């Protein structure tokens, strides 16, 4: 795979970062903004390490695994943010706070079970990072599919930032879980297919984020800058209340 194709997602991420800054999305989704900014920096660090791979291959391996751990951590925090924003307006029930820990435990459990079923060639810290990565993928699919299920059930508006973030991650995570589950049957061809699928899926995910963030999001709560209702509005309101009694 040529170096240019491999770094298409980096270019798209840089474009997304620009869109996020323009939309001031760092106030609405700070962890997602941090994730994208980290993605750009990590991508550039990997590119620099790859260019110097002839001189010292350890630098690239080290950079790869350190940035991968960063992606895992931020991916988890973004999912926490998505759930907090999406469910925060819906319910104040005590059990709503338990949803994310439950999803996290389920994701980690699934990943550890999978690691036992399909033994990994990795060892040490790299093994734990890979297990963490699969756990994040499970969490992303759980959160995405759960939120999408709520759209028809509760009549939620689907075109809002948290749903966009969840959709991008959900699509990428679904494809990656599918490839790691199914493509392992392909044997030696697996690595090449995995690389291509990962590249295309991640690029599509970034395009989804760009599309969602390309339109400004309307304020959900009444703004404090709004003027008070006019006397006419108030009269209509009072009349309606009187009729209801």
């Amino acid at each position: 795979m040529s170096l240019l194709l491999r770094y298409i997602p980096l270019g798209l991420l840089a474009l997304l970062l620009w869109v996020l800054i323009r939309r001031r999305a760092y106030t609405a989704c700070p962890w997602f903004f941090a994730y994208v900014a980290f993605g750009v920096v990590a991508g550039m660090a990997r590119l620099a390490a790859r260019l110097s791979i002839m001189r010292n291959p350890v630098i690239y391996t080290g950079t790869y695994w350190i940035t991968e751990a960063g992606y895992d951590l931020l991916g988890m925090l973004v999912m926490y943010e998505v759930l907090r924003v999406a469910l925060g307006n819906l319910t104040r029930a005590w059990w709503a706070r338990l949803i994310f820990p439950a999803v996290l435990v389920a994701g980690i459990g699934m990943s550890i079970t999978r690691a036992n079923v399909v033994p990994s060639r990795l060892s040490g810290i790299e093994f734990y990072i890979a297990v963490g990565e699969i756990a994040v993928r499970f969490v992303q699919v759980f959160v995405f599919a759960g939120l999408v299920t709520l759209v028809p059930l509760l009549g939620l508006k689907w075109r809002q930032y948290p749903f966009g973030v969840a959709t991008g991650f959900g699509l990428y995570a679904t494809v990656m879980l599918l490839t790691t589950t199914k493509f392992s049957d392909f044997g030696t061809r697996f690595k090449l297919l995995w690389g291509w699928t990962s590249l295309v899926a991640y690029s599509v995910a970034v395009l989804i984020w760009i599309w969602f963030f390309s339109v400004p999001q309307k304020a959900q709560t009444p703004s404090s800058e709004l003027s008070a209702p006019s006397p006419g509005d108030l009269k209509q309101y009072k009349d309606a209340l009187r009729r209801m009694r």
Partner: protein
Amino acid sequence: MFSIIFTWLIVAWGALSCIYMLRCAWTRFPKRDVDADDVIPFLYPVDVSLAESLLDPATEFEFRWKLSPPQFREAQRKRMRLYLEVTRRMAHNATVLVRYADAEKNSPDPRRASLASALQEKAIEVRLYSLLAGIKLRFSLLLRADILNSMPVLAHLRTAGEIDGLQSYGALKTAAAAFVRLPPDEIESLTRNL
């Protein structure tokens, strides 16, 4: 084996969600904008006083006192089915209002947009309550909790997910009356139908 089946189920759930979102994006689903004329004829009247009496613990005690245990269980099942119908209607009306508010949410008038947001918030609260209360009621009816002689007390369904159903529905009615632009007589039929 269990892990593989579970992984495939999760992947299938994720894939179906992707298809649903694609459909939403492709068809701009729900497509049709609902205007004020589409609101009243599509509402199902909700008898709030009936709902109040179904959730009233005193009425339930009265039933328990007057009827024999089998008669009480039968009456209680009927009351549960009736309340299920009430929550279904509440959820339906909330959906109609959500769609109407959606069409107005992009209004250039900030006050209209803000009222639309408030109406949507209330409608979603009502839908969430209806969903949770409906699940509880369906489970109780399905599992025939009466066989174990431990009928769930309907009064406990006043709140579900820490949402007071009737209070939220009342707030939705108020928000709808303040938001919908209709002549006074039609406003009256709106509040009557809700």
